[in-house]
C-alpha cells in the first residue's frame, strides 16, 4: 500500500522522503510540512511518518487505538486545482472503488495551536469511516501561507484494516506470509503504554523540557532555525509525555502549551527571516 502511494505521488511530481527521525505527534510536524509550508517556493513531497501520541496508548487492548502508528502524508504547494481528483485517484490506486464505496468530504477544519497553524478542509469518509484528513493550510507559525499548501494525511492502519477487512488492528496481515501487525507491534504497545503512563521519570522529563527549551533559544541565537525547530518538536513530545503521566494540571497545561507554541513560532519566524531575502528576489510579488 505504501509502495503504491509512493509510486502514485512520485508520478505526480512529489519528492519521496523518509520519516523524520524524531518523535512527533503527527506528520505535520515533519520539517517537510511545517517549514516548507512557509515561503513562496513550490514544494511537493510525500512520506510516511510514524506518530506518537502517548495519551492514546491502550496497552494493546483497544482494537483501533495506538500510541504509535503511521501516517502517510502528502504536501503540495501551491495547492493544485485538481487536488481532490488527484487524491481520489490515489484511493483507486490502493484499491478503493468510488462507485462501490461511498466517498464523502465532510467538513473538518484543522487547527494546531502549538504550531500556530490552521487550515480548512474535510475528513474524507469511506463508507462512514474517516480515512484521510484533507487540509488547505491557511496559516503556519502564525504566518499566512503564501501560497496555500494542500496537505493530505492518510491513516495507514485504518486504510489497511479497511482494505484487508479486519476489525482489529493487530490482526492486520503485515507481509502476506503470516506476520501480523500484532506480531510486530503488540508488545511495543504494551510496554510503551506502561512507560508512558506509569514509568517515565517525571523529574527527568521536566528537566528535559527545560533543556529543550533552552537549546531552542540557543539555536535561535545562532540563527540555525531548523535546529531550533527540532528542539521545539522535542519539547512538544516531552510535554505530551508529561500529560500522559498526569502531572500537568489543567491550569499548567495552557502555560506549557504556550511555551511550546513560542518555540515553534520562534523557529518559524527565524526560518522566514533567514530565507526572506532569497525568496523576495526570486518572487518579487511575495511578501511575508
Amino acid at each position, binding site marked *: 500500500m505504501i509502495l503504491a502511494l509512493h509510486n502514485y505521488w512520485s508520478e505526480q511530481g512529489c519528492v519521496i522522503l523518509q520519516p523524520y527521525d524524531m518523535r512527533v505527534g503527527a506528520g505535520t510536524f515533519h520539517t517537510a510540512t511545517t517549514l516548507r509550508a512557509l515561503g513562496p517556493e513550490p514544494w511537493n513531497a510525500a512520506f510516511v511518518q510514524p506518530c506518537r501520541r502517548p495519551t492514546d496508548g491502550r496497552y494493546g487492548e483497544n482494537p483501533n487505538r495506538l500510541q504509535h502508528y503511521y501516517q502517510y502524508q502528502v504536501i503540495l504547494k501551491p495547492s493544485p486545482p485538481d487536488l481532490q481528483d488527484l487524491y481520489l485517484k490515489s484511493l483507486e490506486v490502493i484499491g478503493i472503488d468510488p*462507485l462501490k464505496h461511498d466517498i464523502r468530504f465532510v*467538513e473538518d477544519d484543522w487547527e494546531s495551536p502549538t504550531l500556530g497553524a490552521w487550515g480548512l478542509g474535510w475528513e474524507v469518509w469511506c463508507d462512514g469511516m474517516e480515512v484521510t484528513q484533507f487540509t488547505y493550510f491557511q496559516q503556519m507559525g502564525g504566518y499566512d501561507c503564501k501560497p496555500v499548501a494542500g496537505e493530505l494525511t492518510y491513516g495507514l492502519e485504518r486504510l489497511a484494516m479497511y482494505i484487508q477487512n479486519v476489525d482489529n488492528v493487530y490482526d492486520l496481515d503485515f507481509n502476506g506470509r503470516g506476520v501480523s501487525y500484532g506480531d510486530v507491534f503488540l508488545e511495543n504497545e504494551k510496554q510503551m503504554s506502561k512507560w508512558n503512563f506509569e514509568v517515565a521519570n517525571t523529574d527527568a522529563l521536566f528537566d528535559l523540557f527545560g533543556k529543550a527549551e533552552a537549546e531552542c533559544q540557543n539555536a535561535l541565537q545562532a540563527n540555525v532555525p531548523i535546529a531550533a525547530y527540532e528542539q521545539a518538536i522535542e519539547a512538544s513530545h516531552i510535554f505530551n509525555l508529561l500529560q500522559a503521566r498526569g502531572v500537568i494540571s489543567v491550569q499548567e497545561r495552557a502555560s506549557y502549551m504556550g511555551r511550546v507554541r513560542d518555540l515553534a513560532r520562534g523557529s518559524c519566524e527565524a526560518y522566514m527571516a533567514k530565507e526572506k531575502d532569497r525568496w523576495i528576489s526570486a518572487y518579487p510579488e*511575495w511578501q511575508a
Partner: protein
Amino acid sequence: MSDFLLELRCEEIPARMQKGARADLEKLFRSELSAAGVTPGEIVVWSTPRRLALIARDLPEQTEAVSEEAKGPPEGAPDQAIDGFCRKNGVTRDQLELRDVKGRATYFAVKNIPGRAVKDVLAEAIPAVIRAFPWPKSMRWGAASLSSESGRWVRPLSGILALFGDDLVECEVHGVTSGLVTAGHRFHHSGDITIGHVDNYQEKLRACHVIVDHAEREALIRDKAQSAARNAGLVLVEDEGLVVENAGLTEWPVPLLGRFDEAFLEVPPEVIQLSARTNQKYFICNDASGNLANAFICTANIEAADGGAAIVAGNEKVLAARLADARFFWDVDRKKSLAEHAEGLKRITFHEKLGTVADKVERVAKLARWLVEQDIVKGADAQQAEQAARLSKADLVTEMVGEFPELQGLIGGYYAAAEGLPEAVSDAIRDHYKPVGQGDDVPSAPVTIAVSLADKLDTLVGFFQIDEKPTGSKDPFALRRAAIGILSLILENDLRAFMFDLITAAAHPGKTSEAGREIASFLIERLKVQQRDANIRHDMVDAVVAVEQGGDNVRMVKRIAALQAFIGSEDGANLLAGYKRAANILKKEDWHGEEGEISRTGEEDPLAMVDDPDLAPVIRAKMDERHLEDLSYEPDDAEKALMEALSKAEPRAAAAVAAEDFEGAMAALASLRAPIDDFFENVTVNADDPAKRAARLSLLDRFRAAVHNVADFSKIDG
C-alpha cells in the same frame, strides 16, 4: 424578458453553511440588480455540496434610461466655481443649461444615462456577489494565493455557469472564467455538461445524477429513510436536522439500512443515538414497541452497483467499532461505584480560586441538605438530597462521559440506577443540570430540585465572590444561565425563600461576602429578562422590587403580575396618572411634611409605638382619622371623600398584601381612583391659607404612601 441562471461550483461546502449561503446569494444578487435599477421576477436558489445555483426569471434586456440633473452656481459666478461644478459632474461647460431659479439664471448639469444591456449588468454583478459573499469561514487556495490579495471562498472555487437567455454572461473572478458548462455527480458522471437553456438545467443535472434542488433531496431522504425502516418492520426516529445535514452532504442521496449487534442494546440508548447521529450522521430506528432497535440508516451519495451492500457493510463496521468502544466504557465504568468514581474529582480543578470539583460537590451536598431541612424544598429526603449531590458529578471522571461529554448527568443517572440507588437519587443525578437555559424542562422531583438549585447557587455565588462576573457579552462560566435556572426552579416549584437567605447559605466560607448585594441585583436583572418572555414589563419588576423586602421571588412575581394587570386596566392607568400628578406636586412644592409632623406620629401617641410593619398602615389610618378632627377648616367635599377613601383603602390594601392577595391590594388601590380624580378636579392644593395648603399636601403625601405600600409607582414608565 429573459431568464438568468447562475451556478457557482466549488469543492464541498460544509452542510451547515448551505442554508445561509442560499439566503446570502439571493440577497446579494437582488441588491446588485436593484442598484442597477433592474427588477427580477421570481428568484429560485438551490444548493448541493458542490454548487450554489440561482435562477432569476423575467429580467428585462435593457435597464431604463435615466436622466439626472444637478444644480450648480448662478450665471456670472467665478469661473473657478463653474469649472469645479463641471468637473464634479463630468460635463463640459458648453453642456451646461441655464435655468431660471427664483429669478436668477442658474447653471444646471443634465446627465442622460442611457439604458444598459442587462447582460452587462449581470457580468458585473457576478464578481461583485462573489467578492462580497459573507461565508462564516473562508479560505485562499492555489497558485494565486502567493499574494494575500487573492480571492476567498468557502473552499476552492472551481467553476461559474452564467446563462442569460441563450447567451453566456462573460465574467472572470478569482481566476475562474464563466462558461456554459457544469459538472455532474463526482463519481457517476465525468466530463462537462453544456447547458443551453435555463429550463434544461435541473433535468440535465438529474440525468447526470445530481438533484440540484436541496428541498427535493431532503424530501427524498425523509421518504426513503422512512420506507427503509418500514420495510424492516421498524419505525424511523425522525430527525429533521439529520435530514438537512445529509441533504447537504449528498448530490444523489441513497438511504440504506444497516444493522448492529443486538448485544450493544444494553448500552444506554442515548449513547447509541449519539454515536450514530453526531459521529456518523445516521438515523436510528425504534421497534414496534418504541424501544431502540439494532438498526440504523445511513445516507450514501452513490447508487452502487451491488445495491449498496459494500457500503452498508462498511458503515456497519464503523458503527460497531464505535459501539464497541461505548460498551467497553459502559463495562469498565460500572466496575467502580459512583462513590469510588467521585474520589477522582479531587484531581479536577473546578476553578483555581474555588477549589476542586470534589470541594464543590461537598458544598453542594451541604447546601442541598440545608434546602430540604429548611423546608424550602418540600417533600424531599435530606439524606437522599445530600447523597445525590455527592454523586452528582462523579460521572465526569468516567470513561463514558470522557468520550461523550454531552451525556454528563445522564450517564451518572444510569450508573446510579445500575448500582441500585434509590430512584429519587438516580433521577436527581440525571437531571441536576436542568434547566439548561430557558425553555428546558425544569425539574419538579424534590430531591432533584434540591441538588439542582444547590449546584447553581454554589456556582453563581462562588464566582461572584471571586469577582468573576459576566461582563457584556462575556460570560465564560455561564452565570446568566445559572441565574435563570435558579429563578425557574424557584418559580415553577413555588419555593418560598428569601433570596438573601439563599445567597448567604451558599456563600463560600473564607471568601468575601460583599458580593451578596451584587448577586441579588444580578438575579433581579435576570428576573426581568425571564419575565420579559412572559411579556412582563421591566418597570413593573422595579416597582415591586422597590417595596419587597428580602426577595421572595415567588411572592414578587405574583405581585408583579397583579401590578401589570392593574396598570393595564382603566382604573390602574388613571390611578397611575393621579399618582404621577400627586408626586409631581409634592416634588415641586418640596414637601417633606408640615411642622409639628413629629408630634402626629411621635412617641406621645401610644399607637405609634407599635412597630409591626403589617399594622403600620392600619395605625396610620386610625391616626389620620383622629387628626381629621384637628383640621382648622372645614374640608371640601372632594378632600373629605379622599380622606375617607384612604382610611378604607389603606387597611384593606395592607391586609391584602400581607395575605399575598395582590389582586385584592390592587382593587383597594382602584377604590382611590375616583376620589383622587375628584380631588384634583375640585380642590386647590396650593391654597392661600397656609393651613389648607399644608393639610392638602399632607393628604397627597398620604395618598402617595398608600400607593407605595402596594408598589412603587414612581418606577413605572408613563
